[in-house]
């Protein structure tokens, strides 16, 4: 799922130089004039930090009754994402997705007569900045919606300090994921669907020796460890694994090694589309054509095919993912895809939707669902109560599905392949998702 954070990994390597540009390499203080409250830290004890932030006690009545960010005419939510930095616009899709969904809702009169607004904040690829912007959003906005950052673990402490503040965002951080006020359309459950792996085994029975490239990022490594467990459970042999150097712009050594080790199935789930494209191009240059090349969502990107060398080189690459083909292929089969693409275009005509745009859209949808249910005079506590009731969510068919309240994913998936230079749905061909697969985690099949 997060293989596309490979691009972010490249950014991590380059954040040093970005620091020169933005100055935040060595700074990182809170924002002047924002009016945010920086929580006093208990003496002698470390404050909350990524992955380990601990929620405060249950919210007080005053916190539950808070209507920060709400006026008779509008509801303003915050969004803290990486916008600037070494890879400009890295997760710019996140606020665009939220804005697009809000634009659709606003076009139909808003929620109880209130327009929905987004206070888009940029953590500028800085953990400290993420913490500051999250605090500011908590002080000024109703909640957080659709945020996406590699540094959301830094903002976790702020969210944990007031658990009446709803955070409806896809998070990469286990600490944030565990907070009672965090609701994700794609929660970190430690589980994954075995569907794609079973599909590969069925359709490519001879190609069972796997070589994999993994981005040197924790989220990608965790995901790949899980994926390897699934592959092994189906009898695959993992013959070659390489954590890619963030500066890598060539994978010829990996191609030579894989060729030498008899690899015939290449797993590119752990890297982003840019690196996957380079790998495929390198393999083609070295005249190596493994029987199976597969990936999760990362290679499902608008420019992947052209940058990897065109249809002749990419035909046959397999994609197993838990999202609809949101670039437009599913527009006829899934109405939400058409809405998504239409409103993203309205909000930003030049923007090509990516996974983060989809996350933003889905998060906004989940928030609006809870906001509507909270009635005409919503408070933070009331919206939180409604969010806790959402036990099944698939963004009108854009996602395979999850249980945000229980922080669980489902086994639903779809398969697509590249044919004649286009992404083509292979399973289920009629639309929707196949939900008959098993779930597994790093230690084996779980359900």
């Amino acid at each position, binding site marked *: 799922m997060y293989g596309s954070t490979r691009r972010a990994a490249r950014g991590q390597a380059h954040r040093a130089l970005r*620091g020169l540009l933005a100055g935040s390499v060595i*700074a990182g203080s809170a924002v002047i004039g924002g009016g945010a409250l920086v929580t006093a830290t208990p*003496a002698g004890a*470390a404050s909350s930090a990524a992955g380990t932030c601990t929620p405060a006690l249950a919210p007080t009545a005053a916190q539950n009754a808070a209507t920060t960010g709400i006026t008779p005419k509008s509801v303003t939510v915050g969004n803290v994402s990486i916008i600037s930095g070494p890879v400009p616009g890295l997760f710019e899709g996140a606020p665009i997705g939220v804005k697009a969904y809000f634009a659709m809702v606003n076009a139909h009169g808003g929620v109880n007569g209130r327009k929905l607004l987004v206070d888009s904040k940029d953590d500028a690829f800085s953990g400290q900045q993420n913490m500051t912007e999250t605090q500011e959003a908590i002080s000024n906005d109703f909640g957080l919606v659709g945020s996406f950052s590699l540094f959301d673990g830094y903002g976790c402490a702020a969210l944990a300090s007031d658990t009446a503040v709803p955070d409806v965002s896809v998070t990469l951080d286990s600490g944030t994921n565990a907070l009672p006020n965090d609701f994700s359309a794609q929660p970190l459950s430690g589980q994954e669907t075995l569907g794609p792996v079973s599909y590969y085994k069925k359709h490519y029975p001879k190609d069972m020796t796997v070589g994999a490239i993994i981005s040197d990022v924790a989220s990608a*490594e965790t995901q790949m460890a899980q994926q390897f467990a699934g592959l092994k459970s189906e009898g695959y042999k993992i013959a070659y694994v390489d954590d890619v150097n963030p500066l890598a712009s060539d994978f010829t050594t990996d191609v*030579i090694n894989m060729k030498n080790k008899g690899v015939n199935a290449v797993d590119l789930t752990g890297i982003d589309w840019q690196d996957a494209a380079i790998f495929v191009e390198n393999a083609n*240059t070295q005249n190596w054509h493994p029987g199976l090349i597969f990936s999760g969502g990362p290679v499902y990107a608008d*420019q992947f095919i052209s940058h990897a060398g065109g249809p002749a080189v990419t035909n046959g690459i397999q994609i197993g993912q838990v999202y609809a083909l949101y670039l437009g292929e599913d527009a006829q089969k899934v109405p939400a895809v058409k809405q998504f693409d239409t409103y993203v275009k309205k909000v930003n005509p030049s923007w090509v939707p990516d996974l983060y745009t989809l996350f933003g859209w889905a998060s906004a949808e989940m928030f609006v669902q809870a906001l509507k249910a909270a009635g005409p005079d919503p408070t933070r506590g009331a919206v939180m109560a409604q969010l806790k009731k959402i036990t099944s969510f698939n963004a009108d068919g854009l996602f395979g599905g999850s249980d945000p309240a229980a922080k669980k994913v489902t086994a639903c998936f779809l398969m697509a392949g590249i044919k004649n230079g286009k992404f083509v749905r292979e399973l289920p061909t009629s639309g929707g998702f196949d939900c008959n697969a098993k779930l597994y985690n790093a230690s084996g099949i779980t359900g």
Partner: protein
Amino acid sequence: MSVFLSFTVLGIVYGAVYGLLAIGLVVTYNTTGVFNFAQGAVGMVAAFSYWELWQNEHWPFLVAIAFVVFVEAPLLALVVEFVLFRRIHGATVERSLMVSLGLLVILLGVATIFWSSPDIIRSVPPYFTQSDGTVLSVRLFGPNGITLQYQQIMIVVVTAVVGLALGVFLRRARLGVAMRAVVDDPELVSLAGAKPHRLSQTGWMLGFMLAALAGVLIAPLVGQTGLTSTQLTLLALNGFAAAVVGRLRSLPMTFVGALMLGLITYYAEGYLPGHINAGLAAVLVEVIPVVFLFVALLIIPAARLAPVGRLAVRPPPRVVTASQSAAGAVVLVAAMIVLAVMAGATALATLSQGLALGIVGLSLVLLVGYAGQVSLCQLTFMGIGAFTMGKTFGGGSWWGLILAVVVSGAVGALVALPTLRLRGLYLALATFAFGAVMYSAFFDNSSVISDGSRVNVGRLPLPFTSTVSNEAELIEVAVVAAICALLIGLVRRSTFGRRLVAMSDSPAAFATVGLSAVRTKVIVFSLSAAMAGLGGVFYAGQQGGIGATDVQYIGSLTLLLFVAIWGIRTITGALLGGMTAAAIPVLQTHLPTSLADLTGLAAGIGIVLLARSPEGILGMTWLTNRVRLPFGNEERDVTLQGVEREVANAA
């Protein structure tokens, strides 16, 4: 065997890439006396310009290349030479480093303005591509061997030819010899009828043209799926190691160094995965260039690492009196108490971070300002202090603080020991390499600190209270900064302080009179690192932890830049440098996008100011004549008026 040969060929190809970058560095250094940290950034701007003209403006690609290499690069060189470098001829190492670093910041800023829109992927197609998209290539070692693209072969050939031609030019041609001579002694060259400025301009033009050539040649290799401004700029850092193997003088040895680096890197990339843990393999491959640089600096005989040009000598920093120090400390703490009452929470956090970085800045005053030992790894020491605090005695305690200071100081001494024989630029590069290794292998290693995460660090506990509020934390760090400032003044007034200044002024004379440079250097490195570690404890305590993003190795250069802009030999300058470093990103996030490139602008202004005043802003005559600074006006006014005024005062 074919696998080994394959890796060997690939290593040679990428060694040539490093070589091309390194040759530009060496030529610039020999013809201008400046080790240009911005060499990669010049190549980056050239690569983007090439993309712009070829892909966006649809110029014929050969015309685009010719324009970028032979028109744009020389013109840029002339502007840079006139505005920035002409003013600092013969300056100290840290000044010339800072100016070239500032140039790097400006060029990154330019790239941000013109080529950062995420809506466009700036991909550069390979050279020698047929109309059907096929990239021309040749197969080696049979059907199971490897395929080399023509463009890869072209890079090897171009690097070899350019290196050879430049070697002959600089050694044999009259102009080449004159260009090297002007770095050593411009007055003597002018006596011989040559024009030093013109020769220097030619040197800069040549250096920029080489950087541009490297940029346009490498662009397709790294920009297949889109150029990024940082990637090309960072790639040039790998050229440092090769340039040092050539002792920054020998082009053939530079080329050999580059090939060695390319081969080692590719053997590691090829053979480590599958034999050791994949994550460890990635770390090892990543640190190879900087480890190579560090080792090269340590094993090359000191006599061969002589700098080009003259040794810059400047008057010793003025001694701050005890009363001035005490008054400054009182003013600092009093001002922070007032601000703690008045300022909002977010401003409080900025001030605390600024003061914590100011303490790290004070460590630079001791090491760079007084002792003349250029360190480019102070944030590493800061990180070690914070990490130690976070990992011991519960994460936030007085015992943890003491241990953090001790551990940082000990690591400082360990860094000093192998680098004892290095000074100036070479010491700077060695400390840079140490910082880079520590960043990649330790702070950015997910087995030490998870990606995007950090080590929790608590605030220093105070008596009679269970929590340290933001206000209390600001006063706490202000008191510690004041104590550090007093300590710096005390050191400067002591015998040890005079030793530091003497060692900076003339290491040879220092040794001749029987003083131990070894002991002095180890002590000052240790003291400086301990102080940086102390700053780290408060920096991390303010934000609750320390992570890789806080201690990036380039950040050490940035902090040095800010402190140098204010005045590297002044206590006030160090504190203001820290404050500046903390304030700029905060201000930046609140600026409109069109003005967001504030840092580039600020750096540009800082560079111009620095180029005008050898002692930074606080050493400027107009300022020292008018303003009485806390901790005294430490910088000696070396202008004629300043000396006259001092004589008059003394009389």
